[in-house]
């Protein structure tokens, strides 16, 4: 062979291998579809094998061609429905593909291989001499399982089945809320059917049995003769559970174990029976009929004659036969059949049950032999219309799945973890190189290291992505959980999810699984009320639990909302007292929001009785600890009567995080960027004046607000350095509080790879991990929350939310107001909250006019009534001002406006108002000292009301 030939050959091998890869799955699909196989799919397989055959012939690969040819012929027969895709047929075809693969892998001497045994088998199938002509699925099953399964096939089956089960649960839940959805029923049916098919193929009898019963029931639901109801749902769920158990057993032991499925199958069948009033016998029959059915009934002469002879023999029988099949399309009016049944119910039942064995055969025979009875014809036509509508749909869905599977592969998580570690090391090496190259003058090195930098970042990002999983993966378990819980608690709960696709690192997904489950469980158990209570409160009987996830500022927010009763704040407070978690005094000081968060305290429970739903180990405090462990926060907000929102904020990933590197005593420390707000540097004069002291606590005025300062040296018990030229403050946030961390030097921000603390260091609260810096040295990662606790910025444990100083700091923030300070009269100052002033204007004094003895001015096309502040406050007038401009504060409120004339605008300041020192003068809120002057704070709305109680005087006139 020349080079061209060998290239051709190589191409052929690659192409054929690709073809065969698809063929395998397609064959399995065909098998699971059984007689309802998708002809289009057969065609696909046919084409693939055909092109292999053609190319093999062209390249002179006779052995290959021979095998492909026989396989193609069988496929042709399948296509023409001369053969049905029984396990044996598919098995043989699979053997053929295996053989083709073998031949392809050693293509050079493929012509010397002996394939006669396989060819013989293929011939047997073609000639129809083997049991393959008879759909002897049971036999082949037996032989297959005896052959022993390859581990890989088994694994694949398990993985696939678990996927199917997940899908199944989701669909089934959706189906319960939307019982008429055809696509959902079909989806559920398909999933069950697939499991059943593969289970049968692999020889798992129990699995097949249980899925078969479930499939039967679903078959009737799909046909419309059964309506979806909770009982069916529960039945199917228990079937799913049994399937899961079996799969588990198979996974562990390779066999189905001694799980008792028969009773469940029986129970399900009975349930089916009860629910099908018209079809009593068919229910009873189906499960039983199946085993003996397939080998014998289909085309045995006995069955043929029986069904042929039945129509003339008795009128009732064909009528019944029509009924059972037609019910699938729910088209044929049941009037004639039901009357027949009603008329002679008992009799009909008996008759039908005796003829029922033939029922599945009826349609087939009707197709094959057109001329039987009219009743039969009707049946077949119903079937004919049914078949194309349902079969292609399922087939399409299947192919869609296959193609989706093609574009993704399954990877062992351990491998991803390994990859992640490697990338972590690479990031470190990159950092090192970058540092090295920045000291070097070599431009080539510069360029290369820049490139390395880019590639590493990209690689890091991609690897991170492989570990990202949608949060929906965790949530998918919840509908089932909520459904079951709601049943136990006798509640009606609907679950809604928003942002299912929000992605999180796998480790975080793992870490939040349990806390989330607990929160959801709690919500159903405690949050949502019983239907009667809800209705009494004017709500829907059905409660709604909403799970919401979204990205926000590099973090993920997860909310668990319910529209339930909310938290009974008083009860929570009382419980906290009762359990001695807090003192009376502390409780009294609690805000409602803080009180709600008491439920996160260790040892807290309001449950009067321990139900089997809640109190299964993890308490809310564990939820909180677990979430804080991964750097997250939990917050609870409750509106009594209308619901509770629990908000969890967690970082996207834990493995590699951006961090700020700071130096303290020649050691570097990393501060996670998520905690970082800003950096402040004080040097020169500022260094001495910037820091103020409240007793022993240093503070810094950051835009007018006092920021408590924490010296890292103090915290780490490192001696203070004598003098430095600047003061570096890292402004951090911990648990909604801000504080400034004073460090020796701020280096840089860097991506760091987080490594856990060794056991010896775990009990030091100010560290959260370690990392390796660019130069190979180890640096500690500071735990900002721990640091805040250690430095009492926030106080630990139960006291955290009731700490007095922290309460004050909230109040400070709330009471701080921006005030406009103005001068009136000789030496009077007053201040107006800037929020009350709509505009500041300078107006010409000469423009003053009078309307009904009221000073007014034309202002923006309106007549603006004016008040002189001197009159309002009754203070001494200033010496006549020579200015002919008036300073006017314009205040507008709901259609009325007033201009207040003052003498001088002095300043805008921020100040905290002391609410206690109330003034008795109307219109004056309080008196305070601003910029060393006593200043009255006035309330413009109050003044307006005082001078114009009925709202007529200052009405806005256009």
């Amino acid at each position, binding site marked *: 062979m020349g080079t061209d030939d060998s290239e051709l050959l190589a191409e052929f091998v690659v192409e054929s291998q690709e073809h065969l890869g698809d063929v395998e799955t397609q064959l399995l699909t065909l098998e699971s579809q059984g007689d309802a196989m998708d002809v289009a799919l057969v065609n696909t397989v046919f084409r693939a094998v055909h092109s292999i055959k053609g190319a093999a012939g062209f390249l002179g690969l006779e052995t290959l061609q021979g095998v492909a040819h026989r396989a193609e012929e069988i496929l042709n027969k399948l296509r023409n429905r001369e053969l049905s895709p029984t396990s044996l047929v598919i098995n043989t075809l699979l053997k053929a593909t295996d053989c083709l693969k073998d031949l392809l892998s050693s293509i050079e001497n493929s012509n010397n291989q002996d394939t006669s045994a396989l060819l013989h088998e293929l011939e047997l199938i073609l000639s129809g001499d083997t049991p393959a002509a008879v759909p002897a699925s049971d036999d082949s099953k037996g032989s297959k399982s005896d052959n022993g399964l390859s581990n890989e096939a088994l694994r694949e089956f398990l993985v696939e089945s678990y996927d199917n089960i997940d899908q199944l649960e989701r669909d089934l839940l959706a189906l319960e809320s939307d019982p008429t959805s055809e696509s959902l029923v079909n989806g559920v049916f398909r999933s069950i059917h697939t499991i059943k098919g593969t289970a049968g193929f692999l020889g798992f009898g129990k699995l097949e049995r249980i899925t078969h019963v479930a499939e039967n029931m679903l078959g009737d639901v799909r046909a419309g003769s059964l309506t979806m109801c909770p009982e069916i749902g529960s039945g199917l769920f228990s079937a799913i559970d049994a399937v899961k158990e079996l799969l588990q057993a198979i996974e562990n032991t390779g066999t189905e174990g001694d799980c008792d499925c028969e009773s469940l199958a029986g129970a399900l069948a009975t349930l089916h029976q009860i629910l099908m009033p018209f079809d009593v016998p068919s229910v009873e029959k189906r499960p039983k009929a199946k085993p003996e059915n397939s080998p014998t009934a289909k085309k045995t002469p006995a069955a043929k004659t029986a069904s042929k002879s039945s129509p003339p023999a008795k009128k009732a029988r064909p009528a019944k036969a029509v009924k059972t099949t037609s019910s699938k399309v729910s088209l044929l009016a049941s009037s004639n059949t039901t009357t027949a049944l009603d008329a002679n119910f008992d009799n009909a039942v008996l008759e039908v049950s005796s003829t029922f064995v033939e029922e599945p055969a009826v349609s087939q025979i009707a197709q094959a032999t057109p001329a039987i009875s009219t009743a039969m014809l009707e049946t077949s036509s119903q079937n004919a219309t049914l078949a194309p509508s349902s079969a292609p749909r399922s087939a399409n869905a299947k192919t869609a799945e296959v193609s989706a599977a093609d574009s993704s592969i399954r990877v062992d998580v351990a491998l991803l973890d390994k990859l992640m570690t490697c990338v972590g090391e690479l990031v470190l090496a990159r950092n090192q190189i970058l540092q090295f190259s920045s000291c070097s003058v070599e431009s080539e090195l510069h360029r290369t290291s820049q490139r390395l930098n880019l590639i590493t970042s990209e690689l890091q990002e991609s690897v991170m992505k492989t570990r990202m999983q949608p949060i929906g993966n965790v949530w998918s378990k919840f509908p089932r959980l909520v459904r079951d819980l709601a049943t136990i608690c006798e509640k009606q709960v609907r679950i809604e999810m928003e942002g299912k696709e929000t992605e999180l690192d796998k480790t975080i997904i793992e870490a939040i699984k349990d806390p989330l489950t607990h929160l959801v469980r709690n919500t159903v158990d405690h949050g949502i009320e019983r239907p009667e209570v809800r209705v009494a409160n004017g709500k829907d009987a059905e409660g709604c639990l909403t799970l919401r996830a979204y990205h926000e500022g590099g973090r993920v927010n997860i909310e668990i909302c319910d529209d339930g009763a909310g938290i009974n704040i008083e009860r929570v407070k009382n419980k906290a007292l009762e359990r001695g978690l807090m003192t009376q005094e502390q409780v009294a000081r609690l805000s409602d929001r803080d009180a709600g968060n008491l439920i996160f305290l260790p040892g807290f429970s309001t449950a009067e009785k321990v139900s089997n739903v809640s109190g299964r180990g993890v308490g809310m405090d564990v939820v909180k600890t677990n979430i804080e462990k991964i750097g997250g926060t939990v917050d609870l907000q409750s509106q009594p009567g209308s619901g509770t929102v629990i908000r969890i904020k967690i970082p996207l990933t834990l493995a590699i995080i951006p961090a700020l590197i700071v130096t303290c005593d020649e050691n570097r420390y990393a501060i996670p960027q998520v905690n970082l707000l800003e950096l402040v540097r004080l040097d020169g004069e500022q260094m001495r004046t910037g820091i103020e002291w409240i007793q022993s606590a240093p503070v810094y005025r950051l835009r007018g607000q006092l920021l408590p300062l924490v010296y890292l040296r103090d915290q780490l018990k490192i001696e203070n350095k004598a003098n430095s030229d600047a003061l570096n403050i890292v402004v951090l946030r911990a648990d909604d509080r801000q504080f400034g961390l004073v460090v020796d030097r701020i280096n840089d921000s860097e991506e760091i790879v987080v490594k856990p603390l*060794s056991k010896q260091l775990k009990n030091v609260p100010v*560290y959260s991990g370690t990392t390796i810096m660019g130069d190979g040295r*180890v*640096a500690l990662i500071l735990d900002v929350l721990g640091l805040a606790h250690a430095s009492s910025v926030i106080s630990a444990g139960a006291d955290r939310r009731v700490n007095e100083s922290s309460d004050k700091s909230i109040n400070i923030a709330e009471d701080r107001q921006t005030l406009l300070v103005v001068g009136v009269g000789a030496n009077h100052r007053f201040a107006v909250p800037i929020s009350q002033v709509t505009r500041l204007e300078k107006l010409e004094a000469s423009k003053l006019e009078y309307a009904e003895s009221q000073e007014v001015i034309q202002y923006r096309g309106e007549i603006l009534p004016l008040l002189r502040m001197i009159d309002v406050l009754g203070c001494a007038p200033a010496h006549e001002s020579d200015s002919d401009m008036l300073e006017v504060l314009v205040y507008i409120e709901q259609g009325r406006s007033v201009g207040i004339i003052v003498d001088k605008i002095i300043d805008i300041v921020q100040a905290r108002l002391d609410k206690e020192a109330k003034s008795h003068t109307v219109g004056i809120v309080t008196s305070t000292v601003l910029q060393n002057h006593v200043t009255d704070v006035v309330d413009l709305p109050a003044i307006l009301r005082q001078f114009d109680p009925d709202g007529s005087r200052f009405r806005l006139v256009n």
Partner: protein
Amino acid sequence: MATPTRQLSSFYLDNQIFGVDAHTVQEVIRYQEMTHVPLTADCISGLINLRGQIVTAIDLRKRLGMGPRPTDKRPMNVVIRTDEGAVSFLVDQIGEVIDVSADSFESPPETLRGASRDLVDGAYKLDKQLLLVLNTKEAIQVPVAI
């Protein structure tokens, strides 16, 4: 009947010979730059980057309550595998791997007091001196700093 033997990696602390089970020793390396960890017990010397693995170094002299090492002597690292990851013991000097037989073993005398009480499993009577067996499990349980 042959008496069961035990292979111990030996090292010296203040001229006293100690041993740990040879199979628990991951490697022995010379002194490394390390990162000091504030707020931890005195005996924790710092953290070492051992080819990407971060290892805590415990100064055995301090752990055992012995006097400080002469400043001109640099310690060696004996890296031990433990259930909680690798830990490095700082020792004065590395000795040989010694085969000892069980019949030469004796438990520490009751008169042994102090930190060594929990940290020394017992002694093997060698020809010229006693080889003390370090209880590594205890040795890595470092007390919490003040």
